[in-house]
């Protein structure tokens, strides 16, 4: 090209006359118009389910027999660098936990949490997991102080679910605000 730089360029002229570059560009555009859509219609129709390794909102789990795994050992509280967990144990003889020691209070202040996952690593009974819920915006501070009962409630994405997919979703509203409700049965990969 450098050699011909000062010469007359017929090729270039023809390209300009017939809008070749434009057509080529528009062709790509049209190609995408008719190919598979990759835009996620979040939050109205679709939502992203992260991989298992994701560190989202904490969950407190139960074992297969439905007994609380948390024994209120306070290790998660001790390991938390931001001191956002409070655990108060108690004795329980009703058998609701795996031992006679259960958490009386288990509270987390999400405003301080940095989702480092150290609490999960410290938990000796695998009661505590960082789950896959990441829609944590809220309209009041109080919404970010979560208690044991809220954390024991199962999250929308079950622990076994592989993740890394887009699933069908619907935008629901209730008294706590707007919520995206995933439907795990209709999935797609985004690549």
């Amino acid at each position: 090209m450098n050699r011909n730089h000062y010469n007359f360029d017929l090729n270039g002229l023809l390209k300009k006359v017939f809008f070749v570059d434009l057509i080529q560009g528009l062709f790509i555009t049209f190609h995408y118009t008719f190919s598979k859509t990759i835009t996620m219609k979040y939050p109205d129709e679709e939502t992203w389910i992260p991989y298992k390794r994701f560190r989202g909102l904490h969950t407190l789990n139960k074992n297969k027999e439905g007994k609380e795994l948390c024994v209120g050992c306070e290790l998660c509280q001790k390991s938390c660098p931001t001191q956002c967990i409070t655990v108060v144990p108690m004795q329980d003889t009703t058998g609701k936990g795996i031992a006679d020691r259960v958490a009386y209070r288990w509270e987390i202040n999400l405003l301080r949490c940095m989702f480092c996952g150290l609490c999960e690593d410290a938990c000796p009974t695998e009661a505590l997991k960082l789950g896959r819920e990441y829609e944590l915006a809220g309209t009041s501070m109080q919404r970010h102080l979560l208690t044991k009962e809220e954390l024991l409630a199962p999250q929308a994405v079950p622990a076994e679910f592989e993740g890394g997919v887009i699933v069908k979703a619907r935008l629901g509203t209730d008294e706590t605000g707007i919520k995206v409700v995933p439907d795990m049965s209709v999935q797609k990969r985004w690549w």
Partner: protein
Amino acid sequence: MATVKINGKEITVEDGTLILDAATSAGFEIPTMCFHARLSKLASCRVCLVEIVGQKKLQPSCVTPVMHGMEVLTESPVVKSARSAMIDLLLANHPLDCPVCDKGGECELQDITFKFGPRKSPFGEEKRRFHEEDYILSPVIIQNANRCIQCKRCVRICAETVGAEVLGSIDRGAGTGETSFVKEYLDCDHCGNCIEVCPVGSLMSRSFRYKSRPWDLKGVDTVCTYCGTGCQLTVQARNGEVLRVISKPDKGINHETLCARGRYGYSFINSHERLVTPMIRKGGTLEPATWDEALKAIKEGITGAIRNGGKIGGIASSRLSNEELYLFQRLMRVVLKTNHIDSGSRWNTGAVKTFTEVMELSRGGVSIYDALNTDTLLVIGSSISDENPVTDYMIRRLSQNKKMNIIIASPRGMKLDSSAALTLRHRPAAEGEIISGISRVLYDKNADKLNDLSGKEPLKSISKENISSLTGTDWGRIESAANFMSSSNSVTIAVGNDVLRGPSRLEFLNVLVGALRLLGKEVKLFPVFDRANQRGAWEMGVHPAMMPGYSATAGNGLGCEGILEASSRGEMDVLYVIGEDIVSDFPDGRFAEEALHRVKFLIVQDMFLTETAKMAGVVLPGASFVEKDGTFTNQEGRVQRLRRFLPPQGDAKADWEIIAAVGAAVDPSFNYGSAAGIFGEIKEAAPMYREIAFESLDGSGALIKETNRKGTDLKSVPSVASQMPAASPDPDYPFVLITGNHLYHSGRLSLRTDILRDILSEAIVEISEEDAKDLKVGKGDKVVVKGERYEATLTVHVNKRSAKGVVFIPENFTDVRVNMFFTKGEGLPRVRVLPLTGKSHGGGIK
């Protein structure tokens, strides 16, 4: 001295020092498990193994003493691997349920495993399990025997220190579990010391069960406010709620030990019955009021009385701090210009004065360890095992390692009797006579050397028959007591506050001490008190005849009994009572109640609405011991700090603040802003306190010292021999009733704590085994104790070693008002005991 090389570092230590201690002082850490500094040596766990150069076998450093020239290795590869293997053996059967275990975070096994232990274990066998669920061993202990590592610290502390001997081990070897011989509820002292020394989570505290990890607790080192022993303890709370009390091995004269009251008597702090606002009597009932209203009412009451020249008096509890007691007497003497003050309502004011003199309290403090470094120890006037449990532990501990003749003179049998060389069971209130008897024997044997003895004249008029019949004690035993003393080089006489309950012949103690000193013995006097700051109260001058520092007062004041007598005549205009439940404590409850009704203006300051407070015109809410700053002086004369740790409940205030406010209401120049400031003034007023630094008092506090002593004090000596008529047995009322504190309770506060109430909440009556046999009753049976004016149904406890004819009812319970048996001025009441088969309970006026 021996010079040894430890890991190449040369140090010189005393001969006989353990390798463990030598290495620690050289700065090396050796893990231990079964070792405990103040218990007998067991050497069973072998985690403390060290290598001695030249010896093939590793040696346990906790029992092996150093030898001159020894070379010790604590970190050689052999030691490290052997140590780790020993720890692995401990872990082989350990359940490793740390997340659930309450000891997690302060477990010695966790700590040594982390530092010295293996990272992996080859043991794959099934672990030994004795039981699946933790089981309750006593009202205070819950046990998980699976976690036990068989160090036997619990067994040793219970037998060697507490003297209860209720823990033992079952089976041997790997199948050993520490428990009571039979797996049933322990009937023990409930001191919790076994829990304290258990290195793992085998013995655990029931009240602290699953409450918190140790790292979430905030604590304060303070002093126990129950008895005069003055134990250091640490109160720990989470988010402002007190969860437990622990003792620390390196703190205080008590080290790791406490008694049930000290360890479990804290929950009154968070009690919902606490007074949280001042109250004023309006139209017959007490109504909540503000501080301003209460102080205004007090100001009006007091200034009115002053204007009319009325009588003002004050009674403060010997459980207040030195600062509060000092300020109280200052308010009384300087602002209200009265000498009618007293501490407590149980003591005879005259006996107190004699006691302070003959016990040489103004000579400053005597450390209990000095006092117990003696050949012969006489304990008299105190049921020390019940009233001052940790003093009892210390005596038991020290008497095991050295030859000490313990002589116990008391009407009641006690646990310490088993360590005693001689026990003198005597009639109640005959302490003075016992002492005069001993003095007489000493005098007879050494008359030539005792020519200069002051008080020898009345001594000579004592006859052995008279003393025997007065005391009910065999003369031969009194003689052996004297013989123990004359064959010793040093004698310590511990005198308890039972001698203060009536006019006693305590002057004879001066004669005894004088005689012993003339015979060249080293004599130490050791007072024993059932209230934490009894000594401080007198030293602060809360006594009608004593100013701060034991100087004499100019005026003539009334003690508690005098104040009540004046009240009953309607002469008392204002009475200010702090922390003392006179109605329940004064020995003649009916009289006290009637007298207080005639006080024109009664101010009561307390934490609870006591029987006395219910009668008040104004009630002021005081603070508990963790809610205020100050100092206490224990029976030894040791000043220890009380530290504010929590804010007072509701509108309650530290008692010194209230006293200062009351003073300022009457005289605005009465201005005090801090406990430390008041202590500064105490140093001026009581020179014995001059060298004590309020801010830097820590650990075991500091002993007060005698200062500027001029000449000898004027000491009371008896003028005549005992002439108390020998009590003529009354067939209708054959028993003598005595009172005191129960092992689990102290005063009226401990019954407000739930754990101590769980242990024992109903009044009991203790009788001797002989009497029990005669009456055909046993432990747990109900009997009616009948006096001339009062009777009560109580549960029998049998004391194997008590004197016949003596009935003991603790003064701590509310269901039976033991002071109603008493009639003022008539000494100890006589009662009848009638077996009962029914289940009814409680006291009633006949």
